[in-house]
């Protein structure tokens, strides 16, 4: 019961998912849709449990007065406010929408926009011509950046006036993206697919079962 049943369930669901993919018949498509639907229904239950662990963690922090414990109250406030409005009144309630639009969305957008800073600092630190590989990385990044903005064109033409490569940076950018970049991506995608498929085969056949509590990996 502890070991065999999960392996059988895993096998059954895996095989059914594969077979329905090859069978356009209405019956197999409805099985497929039903299973997809089931996996979505299971979710809310796991969420409840996960939220319970979060509450537990923060409650423990407050009890133990660990560093910055006061902020755990902020977490609770956030959960309670959103859940107290959203659960009984629904997600279309004006107060819920107001909080979502004026608190959650701006914070999300701001976190996202931090990338503008981090992309600059990462480029400055990492793009050093230490060896051939790093140089290739650096040079292509520079060409693409220059080719992306009109002023890049101008600067490039000034700097490269002596060479046969002036006046060509936008084209070079596009060519790099469409050719060597695409072939590298293809290679990566092919490798990932093979790796992912073989892992899936191991799991469905019950050869790999580490996810079932790590035992005989």
């Amino acid at each position, binding site marked *: 019961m502890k070991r065999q049943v999960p392996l059988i369930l895993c096998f059954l669901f895996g095989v059914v998912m594969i077979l329905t993919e090859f069978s356009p018949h209405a019956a197999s498509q409805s099985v497929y849709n039903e299973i997809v639907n089931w996996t979505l229904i299971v979710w809310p239950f796991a969420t409840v449990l996960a939220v319970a662990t979060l509450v537990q963690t923060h409650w423990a922090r407050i009890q133990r007065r660990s560093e910055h414990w006061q902020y755990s109250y902020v977490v609770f406030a956030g959960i309670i406010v959103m859940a107290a409005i959203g659960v009984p009144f629904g997600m279309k309630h004006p107060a819920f929408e107001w909080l979502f639009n004026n608190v959650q969305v701006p914070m999300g957008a701001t976190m996202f926009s931090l990338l*503008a800073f981090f992309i600059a600092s990462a480029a*400055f630190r990492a*793009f050093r011509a230490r060896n051939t590989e790093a140089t290739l990385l650096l040079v292509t990044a520079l060409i693409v950046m220059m080719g992306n903005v*009109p002023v890049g064109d101008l600067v490039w033409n000034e700097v490269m006036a002596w060479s046969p490569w002036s006046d060509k940076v936008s084209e070079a950018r*596009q060519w790099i993206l469409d050719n060597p970049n695409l072939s590298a991506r293809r290679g990566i995608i092919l490798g990932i697919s093979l790796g992912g498929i073989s892992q899936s085969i191991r799991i469905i056949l019950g050869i790999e079962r580490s996810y079932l509590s790590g035992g005989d990996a």
Partner: protein
Amino acid sequence: MFEKLLNMNRQIVFILVVLAVIIPMLLNIRLPLAVSEPTQKLYDYIDELPSESTIMIAFDYGPSSFAEPEPMAEAVMKHCFDKGIKVVGLTLDPEAVTLADNVMQKIAEEKGAINGIDYVLLGYREGPIQVILGMGVEIASVFESDYTGTPLSDIPMMADITNYDQIDLLLDLAAGTSIDAWITFANTKYGLKIGAGVTGVIVSEMYPYLQTGQLVGLLSGFLGAAEYEKLIDTPGKGIAGINTVSFVHLLVVGLVVLGNIAFFIQQRKEQG
């Protein structure tokens, strides 16, 4: 000195980024700008339309990506209202409705255009393909009323418009793949002329359509908006945007080049 530069505190980089964003925004510095062919084509197409023509604008972008398409919408609408061209707005993205409403109202107010006579926002309906196909037969069959709930039959400018036959251009402002659907279902099936304005990330996917003539013109990212603003001679968010973006690019390129020069000198010293 070089060592210091190499191990420069990242906060200095952050400050430089902030400066590169804010200074061009506040000072309105203008970098030289040439107009590319796809932008020119779109401008020419709209510019040659007689007044009283109607174009449709599809606002197919969400709140996470409006920075690039919105200036395009503003520039094109300014051009249309100046020329007496009517604008019908709609969206295939549920989150875009308020964005579209805001930008339409803003430009209309600026140009003295009147809702219902010079422009109308139809709003959003579910099922992008059904919406596109349905409007080819009859717009009112998809949007029985506009965004504010006024029945289409009560909107003066919609009196003479039944379907795509009375629409001279559809401009799709997109952050995703909605162009594909517009081309397949509105252009190929109903012969509606289509122009596009897209974010920088997906521009290269648009070139094939431009080559085949399925798009009458194309605005690409901030650059496209800036070029259009230059053509109508009213600088706006596009020119500001492309300037800012250009300065940040120059900053990053400059930092990388500087870092490498310092790195080389440092290595020379260590070897010597």
